[in-house]
């Protein structure tokens, strides 16, 4: 009974999970370097940035929106934070400023979409360019490098052998999963994506909550910026290019629909892991970077195609 219910409600996620496990199995057979504790921890560390960006993206996509500006916001938040950190101010202040920049850009996206009535694609396309340009202007195009050990520990330290970026990622997932499933904010996100008019007619302030959703997306981009900056010991204004595509891919592989109303963070996490494992494995197998791109693209298409055919079968 429980298993059946699990399948019914989380079939899509289980499917992706099965895919991930099979991939792990295949890679374990192909290369001796894959299934080692240190390699798996490396993968978990590597996926953290994309996985965190994908959290905000998933919530946006659940509301039937899209955010193309995540990579640029990441870069902008990163360089602003880095500049503050270099002024010998306390680390928490730097973090707060960086996260604030991310949230601010996200909220601006949200306002353009709700008050300005721009399609999300257009509004965030504009922001993608504005935030990127902002990052370049702010730094004159140069990376901001060299931070205190305390800050770098956010990427380099471990707790019980688990890398800090992975722990931060898990924290973000748990918090946002609870936000989506246990708060009215989450319910409204699904409702807006499923039927915005009916949600409005149920007395919900759609504009407010949609704006907040984009603010959240800006926040997760900024959290990813913290990890990236600490990891590279440098904040680059050109960081995060095409990260939006990776985040969308993880979200879609994880079962969210671009039409909105559907998607879970569990699915997205599995999607991000699948992409990370695939990239890691292809490196270990010495596959050329060109072929890697072909394979990743194929996986996205296969995952969504399977999902669509099976949805039709069910009807």
């Amino acid at each position, binding site marked *: 009974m429980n298993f059946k219910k699990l399948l019914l409600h989380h079939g899509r996620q289980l*499917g992706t999970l099965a895919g991930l496990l099979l*991939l792990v199995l295949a890679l374990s057979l192909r290369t001796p370097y894959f299934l080692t504790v240190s390699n798996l921890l490396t993968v978990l560390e*590597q996926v953290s940035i994309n996985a965190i960006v994908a959290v905000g993206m998933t919530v946006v996509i659940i509301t039937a929106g899209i955010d193309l500006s995540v990579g640029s916001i990441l870069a902008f938040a990163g360089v602003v934070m880095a500049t503050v950190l270099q002024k010998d101010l306390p680390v928490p202040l730097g973090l707060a400023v960086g996260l604030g920049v991310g949230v601010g850009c996200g909220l601006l996206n949200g306002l353009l979409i709700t008050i300005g009535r721009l399609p999300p694609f257009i509004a965030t396309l504009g922001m993608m360019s504005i935030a990127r340009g902002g990052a370049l202007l702010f730094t*004159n195009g140069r990376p901001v490098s060299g931070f205190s050990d305390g800050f770098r520990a956010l990427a380099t330290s471990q707790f019980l052998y688990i890398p800090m970026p992975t722990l931060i990622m898990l924290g973000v997932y748990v918090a946002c999963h609870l936000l989506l499933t246990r708060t009215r904010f989450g319910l409204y996100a699904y409702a807006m994506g499923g039927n915005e008019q009916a949600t409005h007619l149920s007395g919900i302030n759609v504009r407010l909550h949609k704006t907040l959703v984009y603010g959240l997306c800006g926040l997760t981009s900024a959290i990813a910026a913290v990890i990236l900056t600490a990891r590279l010991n440098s904040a*680059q204004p050109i960081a995060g290019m095409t990260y939006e595509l990776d985040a969308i891919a993880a979200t879609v592989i994880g079962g969210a629909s671009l039409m909105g109303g559907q998607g879970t963070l569990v699915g997205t996490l599995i999607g991000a892991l699948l992409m990370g494992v695939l990239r890691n494995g292809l490196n*270990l197998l010495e596959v050329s970077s060109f072929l890697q791109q072909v394979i990743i693209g194929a*996986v996205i298409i*296969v995952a969504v195609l399977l*999902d669509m055919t099976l949805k039709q079968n069910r009807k």
Partner: protein
Amino acid sequence: MKTRILLRRAALLGLALGILATTGCNRTEPGANDSRPRVALVVKTLNSPFFLDMQRGAQKAAEQLGVDLIVQAAEREVDVERQMQIVENLIQTRVDVLCLTPSGSKELVPVVGKANRAGIPVLIVDTRLDEAAVKNDGVEFACFIGSDNYEGGRIAGAHFGRVFTNDTRLVVLEGIPGHETADSRVRGFRDGIKPFANLHLAASQPANNERDQGFNVMQNMLQAHRDIQGVFASNDMMALGALEAIRAADRAGQIKVVGFDAVEEARKEIAAGTMEGSVAQNPEAMGRLAIENAVKVLQGEPVPDYLPVPIELVTR
């Protein structure tokens, strides 16, 4: 019923992934030949002739020396974090030596530290690591193999000093901001033209090492400065883009373009007289030297801290 569909879907997805993962592996089985040393060369990108030449030189040397060579690169040159991931993954495969052309002078320092901790010797090729960052992190690398980019830029500047005798306005197309290689070239160029009072720098803007950006930036510069007579681009991709822009503006032959790297296409333009010159690095030699020295490091032989690779200005 539903359960069966779902299971079938899961199986299909996994199958597809499995097939993709295995068909992707068309190289020799790693670790198949345990006696041969495994050397990894991580370059910035593999869609530029420069790094392809480097790869060719490395491959030749690897064949001669009996080395298993792994060449990897990120999809995009600017994707520093991806290059870092590739190095991390190679550390996991326990390669014997790592040769790295860092896409970020400071950003790749932490991962070199990781290689140090894993006991894998590192050789830096083509682009230097930032000295301060290296010192701060206490990382080590066996040797730097690369052209003297500063010297290359200086040669190009001096060349303009010989060619132009009247008052002349020049522009510079810079590479990705903050990249050590590009910065050194531009710095060298500025110092190269300094002794000549008749040479004036009208503008200097980044075009991120890309051809289309070189075209666009050049087009804008031509609008803003109608009297430009010379262009220095810190790589040939941008130089070729600039050449197109000059042609599109119907000013071919009036503006002298000097690039950097002397890639095949640039050499053709130079031979045809449409391009003034290009500073030739020798990426093939760089690749060869990298592998030769990697083997030396493995065998415990001493290697120099800095191994300059010859550099010269190619003109018609």
